[in-house]
């Protein structure tokens, strides 16, 4: 397994190049590029600028693990408003394009956000139809779309069996699950999600979660690896069982208040322990 971390964690005031240097020094193999999260990678970023970003990544001795986006929360494929849905299609297509430029084969999409106004069944059908269409584009690009499980935030596809059934209905080998082991909260167990969705996992986000704590003000339920309630031995064993050998990507929502660079190093060491099973 290889280690990666998102470019969205690069501290404010640090340039992209400085961030890459830090990621490399901390021991990661790659970087997750977040479309829309940092000034250097936006929808208005041209192809030439994107290629320049990739040159810098390679110069730093890193690979791109995948292309994610921070835009789905406002522009989602489940939107009732066709203009919003079209905007979602555009940024996902841009992810597919840049993934090819960055020589990676996976993107992350948050498909579906259930609200009081946009109910579950509508979201389900619209997401399924949209992903059947996008699956064709992903096949053309030879880039897999990983649908992230943001269980509590999306209030959608809340169990691994339902997630699998949803993927059955999408019925594309180019659409799988980008599994976040921290997002399951009180609704289940990360290791069971790994077992059930195993062959369909495109990438894995690692973070820990404080179960029994809802979001409160600006407090996060997420925390650094080994400080939360995930059972990391079980997660390691389940990864071995399903023979997952792909990218593990750190996604740290809670940031260090001081010595921001230290979080990169500490997280990398913790990821090594998850990979080796020394827990």
């Amino acid at each position, binding site marked *: 397994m290889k280690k990666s971390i998102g470019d969205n964690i690069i501290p404010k005031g640090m340039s992209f190049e400085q961030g890459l240097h830090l990621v490399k020094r901390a021991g990661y193999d790659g970087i997750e590029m977040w479309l829309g999260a940092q000034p250097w990678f936006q929808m208005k970023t041209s192809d030439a600028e994107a290629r320049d970003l990739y040159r810098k990544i390679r110069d730093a001795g890193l690979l791109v693990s995948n292309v994610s986006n921070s835009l789905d929360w406002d522009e989602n494929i489940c939107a009732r408003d066709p203009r919003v849905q079209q905007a979602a299609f555009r940024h996902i297509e841009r992810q597919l394009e840049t993934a090819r430029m960055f020589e990676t084969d996976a993107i992350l999409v948050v498909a579906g956000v259930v609200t009081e106004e946009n109910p579950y069944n509508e979201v389900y059908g619209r997401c399924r139809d949209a992903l059947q269409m996008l699956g064709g584009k992903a096949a053309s690009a030879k880039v897999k779309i990983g649908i992230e499980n943001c269980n509590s935030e999306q209030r959608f596809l809340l169990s691994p069996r339902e997630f699998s059934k949803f993927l059955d209905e999408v019925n594309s080998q180019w659409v799988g699950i980008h599994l976040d082991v921290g997002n399951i909260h009180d609704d289940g167990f990360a290791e069971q999600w790994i077992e059930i969705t*195993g062959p369909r996992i495109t990438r894995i986000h690692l973070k820990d979660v404080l179960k029994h704590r809802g979001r409160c003000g600006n407090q996060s339920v997420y925390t650094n690896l080994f400080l939360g309630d995930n*059972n990391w031995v079980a997660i390691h064993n389940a990864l071995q*069982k399903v023979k997952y050998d792909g990218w593990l990507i750190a996604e740290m929502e809670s940031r260090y208040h001081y010595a921001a660079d230290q979080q990169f190093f500490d997280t990398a060491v913790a990821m090594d322990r998850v990979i080796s099973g020394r827990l």
Partner: protein
Amino acid sequence: MLTRRQILLIAASGALLPYTGLAAREKRRQAARWIVVDRRNSLACESARGFQAALRRTGERFEVSDAVPLCRAELIVLPFAGTLPQRQVSQLRSQLASGCSVIFESGASFASHDEKLRQRMMWRQAFGIHADLPPSAPACPVGDPPDYVRYHWPADVQIRHFGEFFPVDISGAEEIAIYREGTVAIRKRIGGGELLFLSSPLGPMLAAEDHQAAELTAGMIQHSMSI
């Protein structure tokens, strides 16, 4: 055109009939694959459902019965099998002698101490298999992470451990799975047939749609064709 195997099956039933309507009816009556299940045991029924799903995927006909068939069979699966009556044991040995593959899944997990002892004695007398009692501490205490049985035949897969751990002696047999350093499944030639002895239940994982359990069982069924 009858295959050699079909001719042998018909012959074993008592009469080598010409391939007439009567013979065809006879062939249909005699399924080559059987699941023998104790319907009074809910876990045996759950496990049987898993094996039924696995056999259904092969597209071949099979029968579910509460007793070891008298007609010659290619494959007999005993899901979560308890202590069998002596007559059933003899029939099973006779099937093995004539070239049948038997998947025997132990039903000793969750059994009383006396029942465990009875089952161990039956394994020894019927198949020459020696197994220890489970360690006194539970294999998976509540709160411990789940652990997996590691199969290395006929597929390299890991299956969630289920129930209790009965270490099996591999003398005269070939180990096919381990759990925490101990052998928990073996294959053993008996007569012209072969016994696959699973001391950690597999059927419930099939019923739970575990992909690797399905792959493993498909390999076992495929192998039974080559005996």
